[in-house]
C-alpha cells in the first residue's frame, strides 16, 4: 500500500490520550529496530493509528535515504501470501518481505483464524527482528484480545511495546479542529470550535466529519452557526459502543464475510512450513557447494559422500578443505601447463581427492617435460584376430594387462614383419592405460626414437636429465627392438633403464623381428634379461586367422561376402596381416565396382595373378596388371628380405 503523504508527525495533534503512543512512535522513527520492537499500537477505530504508523514510516525514510518501508493491512498481506502460494512463489514472497527495513502492519485484528498467515508472520517477524529491522503494528484491540491467534504470535506481538490511543480529550479535539480550520475563509469562530470540541465524539474521524459538515453548512447558509443550532447542524445521534468479540471490518457494517482461503493454497502453505523446517540446512550448503564446484569442472564425490552421512559433518571444515584442495590443484595445473600444455584440463587437476596424484604428475613433468607418446588407441586386443599362429602372444598380452609388472615381465613379442607385433604392443599399452591411473606415463615408442633421444641428449650434455626422464615411465613398451643391435651406448642405457623399471615391477614389453637369443650384436646381459621373461612368437596367419581377417575387412561389403568367396580368399597363403589387408582392399574395390561379389567373378578377375594359391611362391604380383599400383602407396610383396616394411611411400 502506498503511504498517505498527509499522515505525518507535524500534523498529528498530541494530547493526553495519545501522548505515550506518539512518544513511542517518534522514538521508533528516530531509531528503528533499536527501541520498542515491535511497537504495537491499538485503539478504537478512527483515533489516529494509521496516521501514526504512517508518520513513523515517513520520518524513518526522511532520515535515512533508501530506507525500505512497507505499509500494508493484514488483508493485503493475506492476499499477497495467497497469491504467492497459488503461483508457487512462496520463496520470492518471503525474500521480498525480508528485505524491508521497517514493516508496518495495520488492522492486525484480522489475523483471527488466519492460521497460515499467522505462521508466516511469525516467521517473518523472527527473521526481521534477528536482522535488527523494525516492526510496527496497529490494531483495534491489544494482542491478547485478538481471538484465535497462535499463542506464540501473541507473545511476539506483545514482546515490544504495546500502547493504546484513547478517545481524544477536549484539548486534543480542539487542536485537531484548529488544524482543520487553519486557513479557511472566512475564519471559523473560536467559540464554534470550542463547542464542537466539547462534543463527545467517539473518534477523530467523527470529529473530522463534524468539521466537514460545518464547513458544508457554512458554504450553503453563511455563517449562521451558534451553540444553539450546532448539534442540529451536526445531526448528532446516539451511537453504538465500540465493537467487542469477533473483529468487524470497517465499512462493511460487520457483515463482510472473511474470504475463505482456498483449501489447496492453505494445504500448500502447510506443506511449505513442514518442508522448510525439515530440509536439513547442512545438506543444502553441501549441495550448493557441489553445484558450484561441479560447474567449474571439479569432481565432487567427496562432498556427495558427505551428503549421505546420517548426521551433519563439520560442514565449514569440509567445504574449506575442499576449496583449498581445488585452489591447490589449480596452481598445480598452471605449472603443469607451462611444462606440458597438453595437460591443460587434465582430470587429475579436477579431482580434490587426487591431489597426491596431481603432485606426482607435476613432479614427473618437472623432470621429464613433455610426456612420452602413448599407445595408439586404434590398436586394441578386441580387433586383434587370434588364431593358432598368435594365440600364446595374445593370451600373454591379456595377462600383462590384467596384472601389470607381475606376469611375464618382460614380455617379448617376436615374429616376422606384418604379423601383428606393433598391433599387439599398442594393444597391451591400451590395456595398461585402462588399468592404471590416468596420470600414469605409458611410453609406447620405437627403439629408433629411444636411440634418437639418447643421441640428442648426449650431444647437448643432458644425459642425466634424459635418464631421469625415462625412469619416470610407469610402463615401457619398445617397438622394433632389433634396431638396437650394434648401438653400444643405447644398449647400455636400455640395460640400466630395464633394471630400474623391472626392480619396481613396472611393465616392460618389447617387440622384435627376432627372439632375444637371435639378436646379434646385442649385449648378452641385455639379451639374457629379455629372454628371462616370456618370449611369445607370432607366425604368419594360419588359414582360420586369414579367413577371420578377410571377414573383418570385408564386413562392410553389401551384399555380404559369400562364404565360398571367404574360403577362396583364406585359401591363398599370406605371410602377414598387412598382405591380407592389401588384398582385401582390392577385393573390396572389386565388389564395389561389380556390385555383387561372386566366386566365379572373383576367380576370373583375380586368379592367377592377384592371389597366389597355396603352394605357389608367395608375394608374386603382376604389378602392371593391377591398377592398385598406380597409387602413390605400393605394396611390395616381393621384398621378403625386408619384413615389416610392407608399405612404402613413393615420393
Amino acid at each position, binding site marked *: 500500500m502506498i503511504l498517505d503523504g498527509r499522515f505525518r508527525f507535524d500534523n498529528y495533534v498530541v494530547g493526553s490520550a495519545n501522548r505515550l503512543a506518539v512518544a513511542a512512535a517518534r522514538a521508533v522513527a528516530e531509531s528503528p529496530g533499536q527501541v520498542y520492537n515491535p511497537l504495537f499500537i491499538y485503539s478504537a477505530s478512527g483515533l489516529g493509528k494509521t496516521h501514526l504508523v504512517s508518520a513513523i514510516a515517513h520520518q524513518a525514510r526522511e532520515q535515512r535515504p533508501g530506507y525500505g518501508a512497507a505499509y500494508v493491512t493484514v488483508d493485503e498481506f493475506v492476499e499477497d501470501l495467497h497469491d504467492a502460494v*497459488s*503461483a*508457487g*512463489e*512462496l*520463496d520470492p514472497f518471503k525474500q521480498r518481505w525480508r528485505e524491508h527495513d521497517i514493516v508496518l502492519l495495520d488492522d492486525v485484528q484480522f489475523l483471527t483464524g488466519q492460521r497460515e498467515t499467522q505462521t508466516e508472520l511469525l516467521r517473518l517477524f523472527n527473521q526481521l527482528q534477528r536482522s535488527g529491522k523494525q516492526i510496527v503494528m496497529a490494531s483495534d484491540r491489544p494482542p491478547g484480545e485478538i481471538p484465535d491467534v497462535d499463542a506464540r504470535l501473541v507473545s511476539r506481538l506483545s514482546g515490544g511495546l504495546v500502547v493504546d490511543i484513547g478517545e481524544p480529550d477536549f484539548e486534543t479535539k480542539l487542536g485537531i479542529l484548529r488544524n482543520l480550520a487553519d486557513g479557511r475563509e472566512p475564519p471559523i469562530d473560536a467559540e464554534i470550535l470550542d463547542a464542537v470540541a466539547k462534543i463527545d465524539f467517539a473518534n477523530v474521524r467523527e470529529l473530522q466529519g463534524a468539521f466537514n459538515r460545518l464547513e458544508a453548512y457554512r458554504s450553503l447558509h453563511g455563517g449562521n452557526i451558534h451553540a444553539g443550532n450546532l448539534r442540529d447542524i451536526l445531526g448528532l445521534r446516539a451511537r453504538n459502543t465500540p465493537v467487542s468479540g469477533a473483529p468487524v471490518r470497517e465499512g462493511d457494517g460487520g457483515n463482510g464475510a472473511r474470504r475463505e482461503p*482456498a*483449501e*489447496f493454497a*492453505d*494445504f*500448500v502453505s*502447510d*506443506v*511449505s512450513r*513442514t*518442508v*522448510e*523446517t*525439515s*530440509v*536439513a540446512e547442512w*545438506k*543444502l550448503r*553441501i*549441495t550448493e557447494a*557441489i553445484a558450484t564446484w561441479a560447474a567449474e569442472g571439479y569432481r565432487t564425490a567427496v562432498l*556427495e559422500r558427505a*551428503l*549421505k552421512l*546420517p548426521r551433519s559433518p563439520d560442514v565449514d571444515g569440509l567445504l574449506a578443505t575442499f576449496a583449498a584442495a581445488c585452489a591447490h590443484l589449480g596452481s598445480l595445473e598452471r605449472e603443469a601447463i607451462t611444462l606440458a600444455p597438453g595437460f591443460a584440463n587434465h582430470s587429475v587437476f579436477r579431482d580434490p581427492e587426487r591431489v597426491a596424484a596431481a603432485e606426482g604428475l607435476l613432479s614427473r613433468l618437472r623432470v621429464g617435460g613433455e610426456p612420452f607418446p602413448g599407445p595408439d588407441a586404434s590398436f586394441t586386443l578386441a580387433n586383434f584376430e587370434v588364431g593358432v599362429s598368435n594365440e600364446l602372444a595374445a593370451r600373454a598380452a591379456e595377462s600383462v594387462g590384467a596384472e601389470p609388472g607381475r606376469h611375464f615381465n618382460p614380455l617379448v613379442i617376436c615374429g616376422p614383419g606384418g604379423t601383428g607385433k606393433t598391433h599387439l604392443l599398442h594393444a597391451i599399452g591400451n590395456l595398461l592405460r585402462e588399468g592404471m591411473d590416468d596420470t600414469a606415463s605409458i611410453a609406447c615408442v620405437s627403439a629408433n626414437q629411444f636411440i634418437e633421444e639418447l643421441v640428442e641428449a648426449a650431444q647437448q650434455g643432458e644425459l642425466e636429465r634424459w635418464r631421469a626422464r625415462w625412469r619416470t615411465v610407469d610402463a615401457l613398451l619398445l617397438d622394433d627392438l632389433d634396431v638396437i643391435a650394434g648401438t653400444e651406448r643405447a644398449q647400455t642405457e636400455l640395460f640400466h633403464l630395464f633394471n630400474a623399471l623391472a626392480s619396481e615391477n613396472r611393465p616392460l614389453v618389447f617387440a622384435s623381428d627376432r627372439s632375444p637369443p637371435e639378436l646379434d650384436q646385442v649385449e648378452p646381459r641385455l639379451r639374457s634379461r629379455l629372454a628371462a621373461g616370456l618370449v611369445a612368437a607370432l607366425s604368419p596367419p594360419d588359414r582360420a586367422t586369414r579367413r577371420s581377417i578377410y571377414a573383418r575387412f570385408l564386413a562392410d561389403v553389401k551384399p555380404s561376402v559369400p562364404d565360398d568367396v571367404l574360403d577362396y580368399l583364406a585359401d591363398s597363403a599370406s605371410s602377414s596381416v598387412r598382405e591380407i589387408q592389401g588384398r582385401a582392399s582390392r577385393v573390396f574395390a572389386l565388389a564395389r565396382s561389380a556390385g555383387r561379389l561372386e566366386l566365379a567373378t572373383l576367380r576370373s578377375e583375380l586368379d592367377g595373378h592377384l592371389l597366389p594359391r597355396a603352394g605357389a611362391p608367395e608375394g608374386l604380383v603382376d604389378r602392371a596388371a593391377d591398377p592398385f599400383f598406380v597409387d602413390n602407396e605400393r605394396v611390395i610383396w616381393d621384398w621378403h628380405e625386408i619384413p615389416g616394411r610392407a608399405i612404402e611411400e613413393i615420393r
Partner: protein
Amino acid sequence: MSIVNYATREITCKIVYYGPGRAGKTSNLQYVYGRVPGDRRGRMLSLATQNERTLFFDFLPLDLGSISGFSTRLQLYTVPGQIYYATTRKLVLNGADAVVFVADSQTRQFDENVESLRDLHENLAAQDIDVRTFPMVLQYNKRDLPSDLILTESELDEALNFRGVPAFAADALHGRGVFETLRSISGLVLRRLSAGSVAHG
C-alpha cells in the same frame, strides 16, 4: 523411493490411499483434483471397470511448486479395494512413502475394513517396511451417513487404530476431512526429510 533429492533439489512423495472397496479412496482424489488449480495438477489417471470401480489404480500428480528451493511434487495413488486385486495392490504399494488408510464407517463394512488393514500390513511387511515407523493416517469416511448405519469414531479407533496414528472423520464426497487427511499425511512424510530419507541423484 526417494523423498528428497538434494542434488536436483526435488522432493517427491508417493502417497497411497489404501482401504476396502467402495470406501471412498477415489472420491478423496477426485475432491483434491477439483480443488487444485489446473496448472498445479497433472491429468488424473483413472482406470476403472465398466461399473466404475477402480480396476487398476488412480493416479494424481500434484505440483506444489518451489518450496525452500525444492521442486515439490506429490503423487497420489489409490489401490483397487476389491479382494481379488491383491497383485495390483502390492504393485501400487511398492515404493510408497506413506499410506492413507480409508475406512468405510458403515457398520456392515466393519469386517472389510479389518481385512483390508490386515492386507495392508501384510503387504508392507512383504516389502520389509516397518509399520511402526511408516507414515500412515486413518480416515473414517462416510461420516455423513445416518448415525444408525455407521460406527462411532471411537469404535473405529478401537478396531483399526491400534497404533494410535492420526485419524480423521471425513465425508470425501463433499470434501469434509479430505484436505485435513492429506495435510496430515504430507506432514508426516515430509518431516522424515530430516530423518535421512534422501537420494542424492
